[in-house]
């Protein structure tokens, strides 16, 4: 009897000691494999991308640590220089990725992409100039169409929309975008140049050809931008300097609309609901920009496009799997379906993404068709340029908008000097931007 009591007491003591150890020592949880991702999406866009990353985690068991900011250049560069880059970074600027590639700070994606590579065509997978022919360093995980002008079909017919283009006050325009303020202005110049001078001149300029900033075609494009925004004595150009892009574009569908035409990338539809009466995002319609912008002869000579390009900064199994996943049609379909029903679908360059993801979004389907159509498609020139050149371009556009009545020749001469300096400093230009 006593033996049993002693054994019982001993067992109880052991149990209590175990409880104490369990309580006192916080057990180290098993460490799941992790991949870190850096991109620009925040807010609602960040939440949708988060759903895609959740799907990746569900499929692979790999946890994702995501960080989003618009100050991509400053943040990423500091991380890379301090030796702690993210595993994968998604940048809107292939020019910036090219700079990292030239310094061997990102890795070729051949193995990570595998057969996904066949689903993309030029200009999306432009090889780096001078690199091995097979090497690609970035893949677009989401894309947008830029050579379009949006309007409210409930208010205007297409012809009416075109007829409003001559009055600067009709344009929705905001330059404010935190660290990248000024980029909407560069889009105007780029698209006007593409539609008026054609893809060859555009590509020559975007790839750093000497003298391309000071051509007459370039000056005409800058003058054209100023002319549209000052039409009918409008002060829209100057007003746009202190207007955030979301606020400016939101004015298109506000209860009391502040503008009628929005020359913006296709992603802008996601912001149209901000001030719109009722729930959800209103249905927007678009026109090819050549039908609205001056000096184009009404002929669409190409489509300016932009993307969010994934590059791999660390060669880990997890990073490769994430790149392969994000580039896949499956992931992009998840992305499209993760968007709330009343929010426009994102666009993709992967030709295998089924067309039916746009079944409930006629304008989105039309944009997708243009992105997959014959083209030519030309990458956003400022995104393709070396970052220092892009920054100078953005600043010059802000200066143009601050003084739209002044001839742009002085600005363009400065930009040509900047181009030469950037090139001399080893700036990396892409070999082509149109395809």
């Amino acid at each position: 009897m006593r033996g049993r009591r002693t054994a019982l007491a001993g067992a109880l003591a052991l149990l209590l000691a175990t409880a104490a150890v369990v309580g006192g020592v916080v057990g180290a949880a098993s460490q799941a494999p992790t991949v870190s991702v850096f991109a620009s999406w925040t807010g609602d866009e960040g939440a949708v991308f988060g759903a895609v990353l959740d799907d990746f985690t569900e499929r692979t068991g790999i946890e994702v640590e995501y960080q989003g900011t618009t100050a991509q250049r400053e943040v990423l560069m500091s991380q890379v220089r301090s030796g702690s880059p993210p595993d994968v970074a998604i940048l809107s600027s292939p020019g910036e990725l090219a700079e990292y590639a030239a310094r061997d700070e990102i890795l070729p994606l051949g193995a990570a992409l595998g057969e996904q590579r066949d689903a993309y065509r030029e200009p999306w997978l432009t090889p780096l100039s001078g690199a091995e022919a097979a090497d690609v360093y970035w893949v677009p995980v989401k894309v947008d169409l830029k050579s379009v002008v949006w309007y409210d079909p409930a208010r205007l017919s297409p012809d009416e929309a075109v007829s409003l283009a001559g009055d600067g006050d009709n344009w929705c325009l905001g330059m404010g975008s935190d660290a990248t303020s000024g980029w909407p202005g560069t889009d105007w110049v780029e698209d006007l140049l593409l539609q008026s001078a054609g893809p060859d001149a555009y590509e020559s300029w975007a790839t750093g050809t000497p003298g391309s900033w000071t051509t007459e075609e370039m000056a005409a494009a800058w003058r054209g931008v100023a002319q549209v925004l000052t039409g009918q004595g409008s002060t829209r150009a100057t007003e746009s300097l202190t207007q955030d892009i979301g606020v400016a574009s939101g004015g298109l569908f506000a209860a009391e609309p502040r503008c009628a035409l929005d020359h913006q990338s296709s992603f802008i539809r996601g912001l149209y609901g901000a001030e719109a009466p009722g729930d959800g995002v209103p249905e927007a319609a678009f026109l090819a920009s050549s039908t609205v912008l001056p000096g184009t002869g009404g002929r669409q000579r190409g489509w300016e496009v932009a993307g969010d390009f994934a590059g791999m900064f660390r060669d880990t199994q997890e990073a490769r799997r994430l790149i392969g996943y994000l580039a896949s049609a499956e992931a992009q379909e998840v992305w499209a379906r993760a968007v709330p029903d009343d929010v426009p679908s994102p666009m993709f360059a992967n030709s295998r993404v089924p067309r039916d993801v746009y079944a409930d979004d006629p304008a989105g389907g039309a944009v997708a068709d243009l992105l997959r159509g014959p083209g030519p498609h030309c990458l956003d020139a400022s995104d393709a340029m070396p970052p220092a050149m892009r920054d100078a371009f953005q600043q010059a556009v802000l200066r143009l908008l601050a003084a739209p009545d002044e001839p742009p020749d002085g600005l363009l001469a400065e930009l040509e000097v900047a181009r030469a300096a950037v090139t001399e400093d080893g700036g990396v230009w892409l070999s082509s931007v149109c395809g």
Partner: protein
Amino acid sequence: MTGTRRALSRRLILLLALTTAAVAALFFAYAGVHRGAGPVRDGTAPAILDVTTAQDALRQANDAARNALESGQSALVGAGGGYRIHLAVANQSLAGAAEGDVTGDTGLRALQTVSGLIVAYSGWIERAATVPDDSPLLDAYLHYADTMLNRPVTGILARLDDLQAGQRTTLADQTTFGWPGRLSWAAALLLCAALAGALLETQRFLRHRFRRRHHPWLLGATAVTLAAGALLAAGTVQTQHAKDASRDQLAATVGTWRSTSGDEPTATPADVAGAIRHTAQEVETEMRDTDWLAGLTGWVPALGPVLGALILRGLLPRLAEYRYRTR
């Protein structure tokens, strides 16, 4: 072996087992509470204050720059000395927060992001300092700087809020007397009581079988068990009190900073600076007083050999005595 000798052997084994278990439990319970004290004082609390300091300095830098650039004197003073000093304070504070490394890789990445954003922010301020006072670009550049600083969710101050929320979660983990601590201490005190009870029962058994009224070695073991349990529990209460006070003080300081903004600010930058200084001193004082208590952690395992020796010294002679009688 006779029944009495067997009973003595069993008691000896039980007492040694209980001693081992009780000392181990005391060690883990005591170490669990004291383990967080050093990191709170040296890492988490300073890092939280660093973030608040940086936020306050950035807002003051922005105000100073705006005042200087809109004063009409920007050609002479640029963004102003006040801007530069506050910006330097912010950068130094963020470097301090990074040294604290409170929230691991996630926190360091957040700090890198904020540092990058500050570079872009100061770029706009510097550009604003280069344009004429009447240029529309002045307002534009100040607007971009302002939105970079104050934009909800993605602005610099909002990101620092997020970072600090993570730091305060870590602080709560380090300072809250949660279920692991309660379980540890419940088990430790139960085991100490069981050991003391077993020692008393053994003394009663010996008094009955060996007709000795007192067994000083076993009494000593009982006293040491009860005293150690009481002392370590009291030390834990004191340390926990210091942690609670530090946590509350830090929360109050963050609250003061938040009161400087909004529609009706109820605090000024001077209040924030005062609160930061006061809290830093309070936390330092409170947590310094727990140093010697934390230093006791390493001595807790020594209770095992001490108690074991007392128990053996009390029981082995009786076992030997009984062996002699049964021969």
